[in-house]
């Protein structure tokens, strides 16, 4: 089975609103809201707007090739609005055929025989949010049996996380560790993705964390996807020289297709936080996020 190489255009609008009880005197922010132009997507147009308007918004590309915008606001404010709007063409090309045993993929990366060993290796080790452990390894090895081909094993792991874990947005928060989510067997997309990455890294495979969106409206006759209308996250696994990186979504138990719009990737959530910052003052605050992803008909 091979995904059809088709593409879809989306209009994505991501708005984050901060309401503060007291005046914030200063804030420093980093945004990772610009979709990557990459093998799965092409950025057609994009615009960031911030209110109150900062003196300037600076842009740089991070180590993983993600687009980062940085700005500071030095005047007192009680509300901060960040909006990112853009058009993206998504063309997921998951050539979903691989007969390579997972041990061979691992060995080739470690021995540096795989031509993309360096790119993959960056995602093989512990990262600030994801620590590998024997528990994760044992869970993973139930699917990654001896000499099994990497893809079917990974798809099974993806499915098991979907089945074994309960989607519960009250059980965890943005700072919950994969260890906690693993023992709770609960969480949201971020937790599922990080648990899956922890499992894969614990058996020596390379996996990265992808942040992105899902299309909001389902195709006629299909169920609405879990995690639509919000920031989403999934996993990309390095499957060796033929298959390359394969994206899968444990929250929806599927391989990523053109319903997924990738934004940025990194070792874990920490590397790709969509909106992050530090502010002085403010007292209590309320964050409201809204995401709208609509299909653009051509």
């Amino acid at each position, binding site marked *: 089975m091979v995904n059809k190489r088709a593409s879809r255009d989306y209009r994505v609008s991501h708005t*984050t609103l*901060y309401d503060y009880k007291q005046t914030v*005197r*200063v804030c*420093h*922010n*980093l945004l990772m809201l610009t979709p990557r132009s990459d093998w799965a997507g092409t950025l057609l147009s994009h615009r960031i707007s911030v209110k109150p308007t900062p*003196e*300037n918004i*600076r842009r*740089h590309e*991070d*180590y*993983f090739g993600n687009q980062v915008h*940085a700005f*500071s606001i*030095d005047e007192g404010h009680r509300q901060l609005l960040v909006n990112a709007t853009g058009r993206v063409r998504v063309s997921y090309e998951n050539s979903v055929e691989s007969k390579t045993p997972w041990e061979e993929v691992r060995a080739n990366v470690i021995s*540096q025989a795989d031509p993309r*060993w*360096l790119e993959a*290796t*960056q995602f*093989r*080790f*512990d990262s*600030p949010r994801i620590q590998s452990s024997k528990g994760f390894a044992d869970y993973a090895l139930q699917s990654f049996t001896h000499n099994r081909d990497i893809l079917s094993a990974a798809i099974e792991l993806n499915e098991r996380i979907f089945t074994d874990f309960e989607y519960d*947005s009250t059980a965890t*928060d*943005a700072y919950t560790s994969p260890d906690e989510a693993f023992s709770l067997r609960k969480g*949201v*997309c*971020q937790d599922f993705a990080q648990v899956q990455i922890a499992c894969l890294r614990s058996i020596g495979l390379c996996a990265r964390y992808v942040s992105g969106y899902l299309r909001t409206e389902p195709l006629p006759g299909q169920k609405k996807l879990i*995690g639509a*209308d*919000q*920031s989403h996250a999934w996993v990309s696994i390095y499957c060796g020289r033929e298959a390359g990186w394969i994206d899968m979504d444990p929250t929806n138990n599927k391989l990523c297709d053109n319903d997924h719009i990738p934004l940025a990737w*990194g*070792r874990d*959530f*920490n*590397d790709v*936080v*969509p*909106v*992050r*910052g*530090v*502010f*002085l*003052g*403010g007292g*209590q*605050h*309320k*964050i*409201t*996020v*809204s*995401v709208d992803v609509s299909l653009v008909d051509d």
Partner: protein
Amino acid sequence: MNLQTHISDASKLLEDALEAYQPLAGVFDEASESNGKLRPGWNPLFDRLGELSPAQLEQRQAQAQRQLDLDGVAFNPYDVDGGASRPWTIDPIPLVISQKEWEALSEGLRQRAQIADLILLDLLGPQTLLHEKILPPEFLFAHPLYSPAFHSLVPQPRNHLQLFAADLARSPDGEWWVTTDRARNPFGLGYILENRLASTRLLPSAFRRCNVLRLAPFFIALRKTLQQLAPRNHENPRVAIWTKGPQSSSYFEDAFLARYLGYTLVEGEDLAVRNNRLNLKSLGGLLPVEVLYRRIEDHNCDPSELIGQGDKGVPGLLEVIRNGQVAVANSIGSTLIESPMLQAYLPAVSEHLLGEELKIPSVATWWCGGAKERNYVFKHLDRMIVRRAFRTEADAPIVPRSLTEKERKALIEQIKYRPEQYVAQETVSRSTTPVWDQGQLKPWFVALRSFLVHNSNDYELLPGALARVSEDQSVFTHNMTSGEKSQDVWIVSDEPVNQVSLLAKVGRQVELKRSGAELPSRVADNLFWLGRHLERAEQMARIVRTTVGQLTTEDSSIQESKGLLELCRHNGQLSCGSEVTDITLIVDDLASSAFAPNLQQSLRNIVSRCYSVTSKVRDRIALDSSRVITELNEHCINTQTDQLGYTDVLSKLDWIITQLNAASGFFNESMTRTLGWNFLDLGRRLERAQQTATILQALFDDSLESCLQVCDCFMTYRDRYMSDIQAEPVLDLLLADATNPRSLVFQTQYIVEHIDSLPRDELQATLAPEQRIAISMHNSMRLADVSELCSIDSDGGFPSLNRLLTRMLEQIPRLADQISDRYLIHVGVQRHFATRRVEQTEK
């Protein structure tokens, strides 16, 4: 240490001890060759030493040590923040190395610094070392403190390491080996300078005779290098030393270097990012910082992008660096060079980056991430020391041969589970050098730390080093800064050397400056509290002294001293209640309360607060004043209260008051009258006003004489009025006499002046709240009608005086709060946010 027991004949020349020096067999000795001949450079030192008697040497050492102690030179042997610090002990014998030998070493060390710098340039840039498989990728990606944010911070190509240090050991064949590389913020330069000060005092004539190379040119180069990093304002950039604060292990050195190099010492909370610049938050407003010499760990620099503890860093710093608006030395990411794992790969890295062989070898190192190496390590485990492959915190190394069979198995399992996290190294063999111990010269093992500074496309080696010595060489396994003592290292030339000074060269125009607006708010806060604590200590000492004095006169009675005793109780200087009437018990109580460690307000604890504030502003105040306070604090801590007699207490209190006055005198005469002074004196005046008002309230209706004595005005009064003590003239002197530095009106006058001179918006038309309170206080003192205030009511009290004093005592804390709100607390609480999903709204 009792020296007499070791020295039988004090007049005997040191020569015998020098002759009796016996190096250990099979160990390289720095001073003596195997045939007993002295190595190059040592002769003039031994000649001069020979002219001293052991007693003279010990006496000079004791003096030098006293000086170091008073300067507050302490250190933390394992370099752990918050860990116990020990006094810095210096040995009277320096370690001599000939210039020729040092230059040969210098070539190898310069190459090493160069390589370290190029490694960073490569790894944070094109990564050829990884692509071409010279370094395993784990070196970067398995480092627990690695952050992708390290990349592309510094505009390429620029060097990353302004300062580099390498720890050295010497094997029996006389070859040098590097045991550790330090690249983040190498510890030790301040101690080297302190050692040099001490050794030149200890052996002045030997120092002159030996042609010791000077340290100053190195620091001039360091200043130049830091200056050239500045993205703008090259002529006179603001350079700040970023310390982790008084609790950190390097604080002594940070403050010392700030003073020595003439830089501003800052903590994270003194810095703020505004308008895409890094600024120093000062009383005069925000001042741009161009260069930051950091002592803080890489991952703690910026909580908005890095993973460290948020309260230490400066949010937004990385973005300012990325935009080229501030330079940080050494680059954030330099910590990668400190990984012991690197030592296993340096020869190959050297070939790859420089096309040269590595000139100084590292201690043999095997990285357990490689299967072959790991097997070798397991096979030879007993010969090895096991360490973490990456430097994160002060992880203690493991010595497998001292483990039990069970622990050993556990270690092997641990390594097998995370092999990339471990290295094993061969045990280091070290050289010895003569050390003065218990009246003899003995060969002790030595660990050296050498320093290099980047200087016009090359590195320059400091002609000197940090030397730690110990009888037992295994203590250096953990950290080179272990060991019992330190020695100054003399690099000696065959020819006379030039004098160098850090003072600016003639002919360069320096802009004249008189302002002190650069004062960080945190420093102002500390100076303000120093002023208050000093004054409070003095007042408490006076109150207790007067009370003890009065109780121990021939015809003393509890009744007569009732007011004073109440005052003591009120101030927390007396713990027994008023039911106790036995004079002896009360005096004992006063004496022990004054020096009690567990009473919050005891004199001893107030002095210790003075000391702790002093140590936070060490870079801002004259050395003499901080020495006096150090000594005072030690004295109070060492006072045993159980054996104090009356006279002992009185003489101790006399001494304490004298010392406090000496400290105040140093402040008065050595501080420029800038904002720092304003805050120090403001603190003192406020405290004195409060104390004097309290004393008048407590004693005026009880004993006029005690009032005069406690307020230190007895002599003045007698001068004016002889022994006729009356209410009106006493009150005039203590309250309304503007010429008396102890009167209330004198305090309020200075309070008004100090507050007027604080920076504020010049366009503001109305008076600020703190100005209003100060003026109101001052006016009520100036308008006070002494004879009306002395009118008595039916109970013998002074109602209008009481009202006036009560009002004043309410105003003082309000004024202090206003000042601190407006000037001293600039720092708000920082919060972080990271969004995840829609439904997550914080209530």
